[in-house]
């Protein structure tokens, strides 16, 4: 379940693709589940060392940098992969249930920190977002695990 050598490029390209898909869905429907965050969390599960996590954190922060100014989202995207990595290392848990918990709690953390008003006014949107992005995350996890793509 660990990354093979030189697969960081493949992961980076997949993340880039997922980011563009998310942007396109957002443009079309004015709302899109957080596929990018879900994919990033899944790839943390496949990383073998801290340097790879650091690279993914930097790369995702670089991708989502939509304005030339530091934002809370960038900091979260930088910190969340590292936090999950250390939790996984500490508790020695790397199964689909842990992934499920990580996906849900990361999404909830984002909504709580970035815009908690959603909880009051658009709770159903949060539920849809978490549900769809979690399913996406599990799907990506299963594809990469079963097909041994990484």
């Amino acid at each position, binding site marked *: 379940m660990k990354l093979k050598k030189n697969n960081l490029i493949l992961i980076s390209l997949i993340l880039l693709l997922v*980011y563009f898909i*998310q*942007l396109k869905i*957002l*443009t*079309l429907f*004015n*709302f*899109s*589940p*957080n596929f*990018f965050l879900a994919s990033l969390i899944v790839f943390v599960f496949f990383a073998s060392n801290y340097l790879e996590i650091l690279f993914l954190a930097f790369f995702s922060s670089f991708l*989502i940098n*939509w*304005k*030339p*100014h530091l934002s809370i*989202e960038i900091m979260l995207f930088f910190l969340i992969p590292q936090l999950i990595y250390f939790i996984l290392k500490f508790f020695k848990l790397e199964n689909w249930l842990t992934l499920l918990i990580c996906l849900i709690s990361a999404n909830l953390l*984002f*909504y709580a920190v*970035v*815009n908690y*008003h*959603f909880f009051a*006014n*658009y709770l159903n*949107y949060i539920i849809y*977002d978490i549900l769809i992005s979690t399913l996406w995350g599990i799907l990506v996890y299963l594809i990469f695990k079963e097909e041994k793509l990484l």
Partner: protein
Amino acid sequence: MKKVYFFIFLILIAVFLNSKIGWEAKRYFLKDFSKDDFSLEKENLILKAQISQFEILKPFLNKNLDYKVGFIYSRYPFNFKNELLVNLGEKDGIQPDSAVVIPSSSTPQSFILVGKIKDVYENFSTIQTLFDSNFKLTVQIANSEEALLVGGPLPKIILIPIKNKINTGDVVFSKDSTLPYGLIIGGIKKIQNVSNSLFLEAEIELPYDLSQINAVAILKK
């Protein structure tokens, strides 16, 4: 025969060594746009760019209010907020809470509200759109009393007094102390009764597609 080839080779060398003839020949073979051709091409490109910019800016012309026109750089990439980045900032005199509008195509001399300025930096600003869940604005529906517009993925109007007679299609416009009066927001799409309440709620239909907006006008305060 070899002498002929050698002779042709020498001519070619001579042609390419001579700066002028060589350059012209090279340009011919490589289709290089240098000198006049290149400057014409460059000028053509610049004019094309200016025309396309003018096409975007044309609807903003001949309006009475004092405003600055800016281009949209990028859009917030997630669901958590709905913000746009515009190329006008502090040095252009932009201030927080200024109204951000687009021209109305149906009624000349009037603007449609897109959002308001949230953060101002030196060279750019962020716009909080009506689709942001933190966006709130006092509005008026046709001739009725004031109500509150609440932003979000589906912007809606709340706190509409039940005694007010409002209909589907009624125009909603701004009546907030922080923005100019009468900026068009949209039309009433669906009216909903809230149980055990003295107020109505209504869904609002906005007359634009946010993803199609390339330029906005920022009204000066």
